[in-house]
């Protein structure tokens, strides 16, 4: 089996403050295979965007990687000097951010911004770069791309701007794209267009995507696997269909119940009482334990004293002591088959 494209091992992100060190991301590990879409979902403050920023080397000071490794394409990238990571960023790892207006420079035409990216990373002449830029704009569905290329960002609507940003991310044909809430600022009908586009381009270019979002619906439609984050840790990770239909971590179960669904005529939504802990006061043991309804089911108050690692649970892995008794029942081959099926299901 090929080594995964991206491996994140025991990543820890800290923010030193006057009142001590805040741990925003605490010991998380996951990997992304080539061409795979990994969804990272969580509520605000769960550390999902920081994880994305760390992978692409855009962590803003005073935030810092305090531990762990990020291995991209067999090479460690978390400790590279600034100039080195700059070469990888854009060339091998592209990025799409939430607000398309702030990720484009308002003073330059979009053509100039795209050709600049192409020329920085690929050995092309200016004319070739421009042709490539027009191709890219056509590919992301911008009508009359040869004229629109000389327009400024303000002349585009929100959905069109996000398409431009996607074309920028794709400009140097990267192997991985970090998409941080790419559809959050868009209306539902535009959102559907952008998701369809991202899926199509990912498949055609064989680009892996790390899709960071708070919207489970977007994940369900796009991702192959999903990691659910809570208070800077991964609560559950697994194939998207399994996590959505048979969640194993009490937090994921609560989260799925809290999402209103068209056609469900429940009088009440399931609710998780309380709120996510502040970074200054993350509970000992499992971070979710004060809100967890199943805490009493685990013997010896283990939830409040000992932090659970990711344990095999059903078809997924969940960081929850409820699953401490289970051993990995499925063989590797079955796992492989299952995730293939999921991939097919999602790409329908």
């Amino acid at each position, binding site marked *: 089996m090929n080594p995964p494209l991206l491996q994140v091992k025991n990543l820890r992100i800290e923010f030193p403050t006057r009142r001590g060190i805040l741990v925003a991301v605490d010991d998380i590990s996951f990997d992304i295979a080539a061409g795979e879409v990994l969804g990272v979902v969580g509520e605000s403050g769960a550390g999902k965007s920081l994880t994305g920023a760390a992978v692409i080397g855009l962590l803003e000071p005073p935030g810092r990687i305090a531990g762990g490794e990020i291995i991209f394409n067999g090479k460690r990238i978390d400790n590279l000097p600034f100039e080195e990571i700059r070469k990888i960023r854009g060339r091998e790892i592209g990025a799409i951010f939430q607000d398309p207006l702030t990720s484009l420079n308002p003073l330059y035409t979009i053509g100039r911004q795209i050709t600049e990216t192409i020329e920085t990373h690929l050995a092309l002449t200016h004319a070739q770069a421009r042709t490539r830029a027009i191709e890219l704009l056509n590919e992301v569905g911008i009508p009359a791309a040869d004229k629109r290329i000389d327009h400024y960002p303000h002349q585009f609507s929100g959905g069109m701007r996000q398409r431009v940003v996607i074309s920028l991310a794709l400009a140097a044909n990267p192997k991985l794209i970090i998409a941080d809430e790419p559809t959050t600022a868009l209306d*539902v*009908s535009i*959102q*559907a267009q952008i998701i369809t586009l991202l899926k199509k381009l990912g498949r055609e270019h064989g680009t892996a995507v790390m899709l960071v979002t708070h919207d489970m619906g977007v994940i369900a439609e796009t991702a192959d696997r999903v990691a659910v984050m809570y208070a800077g840790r991964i609560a559950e990770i697994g194939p998207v269909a399994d996590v959505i239909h048979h969640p194993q971590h009490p937090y994921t179960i609560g989260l799925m119940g809290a999402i*209103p669904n068209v056609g469900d005529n429940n009088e009440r*939504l399931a609710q998780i009482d309380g709120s996510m802990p502040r970074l200054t006061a993350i509970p000992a043991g499992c971070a979710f334990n004060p809100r967890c309804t199943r805490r009493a089911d685990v013997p010896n108050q283990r939830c409040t004293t000992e932090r659970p690692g990711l344990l095999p649970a059903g078809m997924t892995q969940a960081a929850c002591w409820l699953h401490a008794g289970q051993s990995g029942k499925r063989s590797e081959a079955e796992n492989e088959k299952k995730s293939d099926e999921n991939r097919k*299901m999602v790409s329908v």
Partner: protein
Amino acid sequence: MNQKKSNILLDVRDVAKEFDVSKPWLNRIIERQDKQILKAVDGVSFTINRGETLSLVGESGCGKSTVARLVCGLYTPSRGSIHFDGVDMAEAEGDTLRKLRARFQMIFQDPYASLNQRWRVGKIIAEPILVHGLGKPGSALNKRVGELLTQVGLSPLDAEKFPHEFSGGQRQRVSIARALSSNPEFLVCDEPTSALDVSVQAQILNLMKDLQREFGLTYLFISHNLAVVSHISNRVGVMYLGRLVEVADTNRIFTMPLHPYTQMLQSAIPDLKMTGKQRTPVAGEVPNPLTPPTGCAFHPRCPHANERCKRERPEMIDHPEGGQVACHGVEEKRINMIKLAA
């Protein structure tokens, strides 16, 4: 008046709101430009019965928030009338208006911007009571504030705190407590959960439903999230470019959307159940409201549009399946009904 109390609490008739977005006078003269009028809301009519929840959905710029503000009296309509409990809001003045105003309140989207950060929560919640002369400062008022805080799931001790000490969801609870403090019958909620995380959103939606049952409240609920709307409302109105295109019972809207725009919104809802449902993303975007298309505003994006749609603006007509639709295609039975399993 000996009139029997009608079941209709709010009656909005052909309301329009225009904003003058022209350049300054001198620029207009020099650049030889006409005045530019933005029709944010262009002839909207609906009614809300006592105790029910009507939701308005639509994409950004469709005028749904403007309707909320018109209903609350934050804007005066350019045309049309709004009757609250049989009284024309435009004609009510002085004491009548003040009494009327106490009977409806508003909850805003952003719980960070809508609370005064320099005031303690107790003062924020007590303000409507004092403004409407429903109480005087003192222990009775403090007790009432404590009650309100308990009702929304906070502690009476929280009255001493400042808004910044609360999380987003808790602040929205404070907004709700403030809205409830003048004992209103009617709440206008403008995207009350859009700024919140899903688990907090579930808490707030449950709270709103509980309060509705307990106090017999009537809601006008504004949202862009169809799943939230399907959960909370009895009836739904779909807006597009300043006009209502379809109004019907929640069940009918979601199982049998008639207007092509409603059908499009319907298919754009992310499919959480992963049934492999085919999504048909509709091409195009909402046109610029300064230069709305002629005829039916949706015709440039509509797969069923014909000459009549480009020429003639459709009016709201009752539909045999219930509710009203403004669409020539539906009227002429050109458009196939899509029946969706609930």
